[in-house]
């Protein structure tokens, strides 16, 4: 999520000035997603330039953080498009842990068991911390935060299950040998017919 769309989403609900936007962002998300006032101001300036928001300052009161912003029609359209664009989750085929596991299978200074154990310890520590946080969250007044934590928990659980699966099949995995790279014929490819 980007500051840009968070601002558009909030301004759709009601017009606000920059300072208020900052407070609303913090309230809505209640995470450490730390948005600096300067960042809000610069984003607002860019949004204004793109004609997605429009300020109207109260008479005589021209301090930039007192400008009250509202969405333009173009801004509403941009926001609608954002809402209705599905988010693509990034999968981890290229991530460092996967690489460690795969390379350790065919020989390294540590065993794949050590690689899996190290990662599992880390994941459990994360899950432990999240669970501690979750216990402090009030299910009624902080439901959005609770749901945010749940998605983190479920992803950690999935990662842990995957590690379990790898451990369960470690003997098979150790027999795995990567295919030999095919020798590419050099030079210009021959044409079959002309």
């Amino acid at each position: 999520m980007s500051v840009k769309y968070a601002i558009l989403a909030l301004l759709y609900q009601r017009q606000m000035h920059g300072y208020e936007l900052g407070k609303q962002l913090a309230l809505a998300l209640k995470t450490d997603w730390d948005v600096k006032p300067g960042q809000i101001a610069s984003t607002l300036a860019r949004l204004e330039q793109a004609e997605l928001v429009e300020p109207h300052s109260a008479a005589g009161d021209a301090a930039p953080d007192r400008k009250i912003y509202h969405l333009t029609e173009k801004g509403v359209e941009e926001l609608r498009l954002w809402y209705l664009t599905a988010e693509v989750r990034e999968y981890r085929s290229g991530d460092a842990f996967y690489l460690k596991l795969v390379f350790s299978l065919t020989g390294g200074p540590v065993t794949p068991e050590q690689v899996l154990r190290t990662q599992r310890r880390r994941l459990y520590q994360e899950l432990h911390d999240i669970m501690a946080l979750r216990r402090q969250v009030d299910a009624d007044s902080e439901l959005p935060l609770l749901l945010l934590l749940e998605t983190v928990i479920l992803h950690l659980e999935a990662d842990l299950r995957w590690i379990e699966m790898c451990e369960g099949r470690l003997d098979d995995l150790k027999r795995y040998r990567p295919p030999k790279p095919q020798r590419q014929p050099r030079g210009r490819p021959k044409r079959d017919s002309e």
Partner: protein
Amino acid sequence: MSSIVRVEALSKHYGSNGVRLEVLKGIDLNIEEGEFVAVMGPSGSGKSTLLHLIGGLDRPSGGRVWIKDRALNDLDDKGLSQLRRQQIGFVFQFFNLLAVLSARENVAMPLILDGVKRAAALQRAEGALEAVGLADRKDHRPAELSGGQQQRVAIARALVIKPALIMGDEPTGALDTRTGDEVVNLLRQSISQERRTLVVVTHDARVAAHADRIIYLKDGEIVDDNRLNSGERPLAAPVSGEAS
């Protein structure tokens, strides 16, 4: 800190005449007073067997177990069941409540077995049910309660004897996630208030993540002993957003 459970070279095998199944192969383990320990591992790794041996529900083939400096090996069956009744509260996957008894009578049962007068036992059972939030269900039979409620009755039954040690064998295995969370939280609270020790066998990462320490078994051996840090700090943040 002092150990409440001490296990030395503990082994268990079944079968004879060449067909020998080694379930536990020489486990050494210390569990400190006040710890919440999760025991994990694939099925067949020996985790339930370990729990049963520590809890005195079964006898080892080799090695020794101490609970609070009492050597279980030296106790006869009568001594063992007395130790269980007085020191160890058990919580099982399928609750193991007696169907013909009310919640209150189920909870009172270990006290009555230990010689407490029925009226006094029932009164203490009511207190224990109240502590797990089931005061208004005391006259219900297990079949009239939900799974989560039945497990809470079982927890009250485990707690009513004021045990030093609580042992759970997949205590959330028959419950949905949300109810399971409630049950684990209840178990956690019950130990942190009274400085009890909790040992739970589970395959559920979510349950294990509540623990202070996770022990992994594989093929009858401990392959990892993972102590989790619980800082005062309730964690920085689950999410870090990118700017702009």
